[in-house]
């Protein structure tokens, strides 16, 4: 039995996904068992390493490095102690050194370098692993040079539209206004995505640092983080991290003795997908209905409360510290074509090894799904994969060799979006998925424009007729027409992109629109 003088460090994640599989009770069980045996342990609640099928993934610190055990249930804890897991001994749940697990080892972790490694709320941990190096460098630079670095890095918006971040910043930088804002879009409503959540829960100071750098670059002294209400853990972690950063003078007035001020506030959404659309989000932060605004004016010119505003996704802002730390070239050297750097891909749905894989652009969908993900969880053949959330396309198996790259995906009429990858096996009914896309649009439309508000309702009705076997050819024609109207006539991408999943389902899986009518077809 271990009778160590110094406490052995045991990591049990506090990430919501780990909690969803019982991490809290596992942590309690480990503390209780250690006490019973007289073993000294120090339990650290880290973020998740991203190997979500192994959660709760418990790690023990040994002289050789951190050893991984998972998925650990409370009922395994006694046995783990019995076989000497505090010394990193073998066990049926043991995966060896975490850093050597191929799923983890073969990633290119830039934005997520610290997630899972550190205690998310320890600023000392954060600084030990290069935290605040980027901001420190930025504070010694001319603001326009910061903007320049971000532009040169090739970073494009990770929220979905892939607009160059540096160009957006330049517009705000060039406006003359005493009050400007940085708004972080943490609405992350896309099905199949959870990377924003993992960064906010696993390394909140990284986002705070990125936003502070953005503030200095464009001359903004106030920032908001708009987090969806489905993420209570992320909200709590961020609020606590902001308090800590303020106390340590990494936020607030004269940050670390510099002339710069930056304040941050978290705002919680209230269950509206459309509030992820940037102007709808601004309305929501202002305390209004989330109606999409007409553009122009661009938010960069007239944004939050009518002031120039940078709006960026969590991962865009979270990638800024490493760009400032290691330089634009370092970041730009990853990737392919015009897709530079890395993306946090999220493997979800019917997949054996679901989780987060940060890789340089250019990796193929197949490498991610079959290599990392190990195929479907059901063991059945892959039939369809939805990329880029509910407004993204469904692709068939034979297109999985497409490299993950914004332009390559456009060529196959699909989107990389926020990096969500949702796998379906051969039991999927693609007509039902097309109907769902329309239904989702009826539920989430902000209602401002007709093609989206009414079009989606007509879309559901038309899909019902197709599924019900009523005048199929004519209704498929109506559906196609309707989708064209929605694409061309919608004010924002909610209505404008809903046709993407619908038409991709029709294009790649037409047989599902011609199935024999089921007895209970309506659902």
């Amino acid at each position, binding site marked *: 039995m271990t009778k160590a003088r110094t406490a052995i460090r045991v990591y049990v994640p506090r990430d*919501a*996904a780990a*909690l*969803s*599989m019982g991490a809290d009770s596992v942590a309690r069980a480990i503390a209780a068992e250690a006490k019973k045996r007289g073993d000294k342990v120090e339990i650290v609640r880290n973020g998740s390493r991203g190997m*979500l*099928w192994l*959660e709760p993934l418990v790690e023990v610190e040994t002289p050789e490095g951190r050893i991984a055990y998972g998925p650990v249930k409370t009922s395994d804890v006694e046995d783990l102690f019995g076989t000497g897991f505090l010394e990193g001994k073998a066990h049926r749940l043991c995966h060896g050194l975490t850093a050597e697990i191929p799923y983890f080892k073969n990633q290119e972790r830039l934005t997520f370098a610290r997630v899972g490694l550190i205690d998310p709320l320890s600023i000392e941990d954060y600084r030990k692993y290069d935290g605040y190096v980027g901001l420190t460098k930025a504070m010694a630079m001319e603001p326009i040079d910061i903007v320049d670095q971000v532009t040169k890095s090739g970073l494009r918006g990770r929220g979905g539209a892939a607009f160059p971040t540096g160009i957006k910043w330049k517009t705000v930088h060039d406006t003359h206004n005493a009050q400007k804002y940085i708004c972080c879009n943490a609405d*992350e*409503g*896309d*099905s*199949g*995505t*959870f990377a924003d*959540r993992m960064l906010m829960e696993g390394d909140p100071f990284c986002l705070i640092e990125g936003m502070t750098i953005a503030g200095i670059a464009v001359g903004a002294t106030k920032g908001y983080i708009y987090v969806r*209400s*489905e*993420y*209570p*853990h992320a909200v709590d972690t961020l609020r606590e991290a902001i308090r800590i950063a303020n106390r340590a003078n990494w936020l607030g007035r004269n940050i670390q003795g510099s002339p710069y001020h930056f304040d941050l506030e978290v*705002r*919680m*959404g*209230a*269950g*509206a*997908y459309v509030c992820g659309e940037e102007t709808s989000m601004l309305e*929501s*932060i*202002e*305390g*209004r*209905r*989330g109606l999409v605004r007409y553009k122009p004016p661009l938010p960069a010119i007239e944004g939050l*409360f009518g002031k120039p505003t940078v709006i960026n996704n969590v991962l865009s802002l979270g990638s800024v510290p490493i760009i400032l730390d290691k330089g634009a070239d370092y970041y730009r050297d990853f990737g392919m074509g015009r897709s530079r750097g890395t993306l946090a891909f*999220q*493997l*979800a*749905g*019917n*997949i054996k090894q*679901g*989780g987060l894989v940060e890789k340089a652009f250019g990796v193929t969908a197949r490498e991610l799904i079959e290599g990392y993900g190990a195929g479907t*969880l059901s063991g059945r053949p892959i039939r369809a994969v*939805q990329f880029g959330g*509910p407004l993204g396309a469904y692709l068939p198996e034979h297109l999985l060799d497409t490299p993950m790259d914004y332009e390559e995906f456009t060529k196959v009429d699909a989107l990389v979006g926020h990096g*969500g990858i*949702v*796998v*379906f*096996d051969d039991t*999927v009914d693609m007509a039902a*998925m097309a109907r*769902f896309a329309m239904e*989702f649009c009826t*539920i*989430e439309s902000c209602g401002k424009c007709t093609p989206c508000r009414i079009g989606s309702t007509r879309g559901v009705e038309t899909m019902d007729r197709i599924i019900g076997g009523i005048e199929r050819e004519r209704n498929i024609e109506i559906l196609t027409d309707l989708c064209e109207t929605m694409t061309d006539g919608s004010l924002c991408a909610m209505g404008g992109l809903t046709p993407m999943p619908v038409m991709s389902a029709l294009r790649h899986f037409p047989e599902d629109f011609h199935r024999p009518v089921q007895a209970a077809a309506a*659902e």
Partner: protein
Amino acid sequence: MTKSTLNVKNVAPAGSDELARTICAAHDNRPDALLEIFHDLQHDLGYVPEETLTVIADILNRSRAEIYGVLTFYHEFRRTPGGQHTIKICRAEACQAMHTQELCRHAQDKLRVKFGETTADGKFNLEAVYCLGNCALSPAMMIDGDLYGCVDKERFDDIIADIDRGATA
């Protein structure tokens, strides 16, 4: 308690006006903090009583119609009292890939309610949501802010039974 859908006329709990005032003050009576104010009210009362809207409108210097419009726009806010616990089951794509439809059917049968309703004993609200950010461990469910992954029918029953017994989830 009856099903919330039957509660057409709700009488706000005594003191809810006062509570609304306190909450507004805690947010410095800022008009832009309206969603936060609603969240706090719902946290304390389980819903946002319509009676409080006039008070809030006055304090924030906005019209009651506008305040009402905001309240009704967001799926998260309840306008009627509901059950003790709120169960949110994800029915978005990644969870569908893991057959959340079956879980949805099972939950509705088991609790004998439809989505949007409250159980006859007043214990549970059942709601459909679209993604809880737990898409690698689908199907996902959230009860009062606690997240659950890989929820099949048996696990659903176990979790509900635990909560029913008053055990901490």
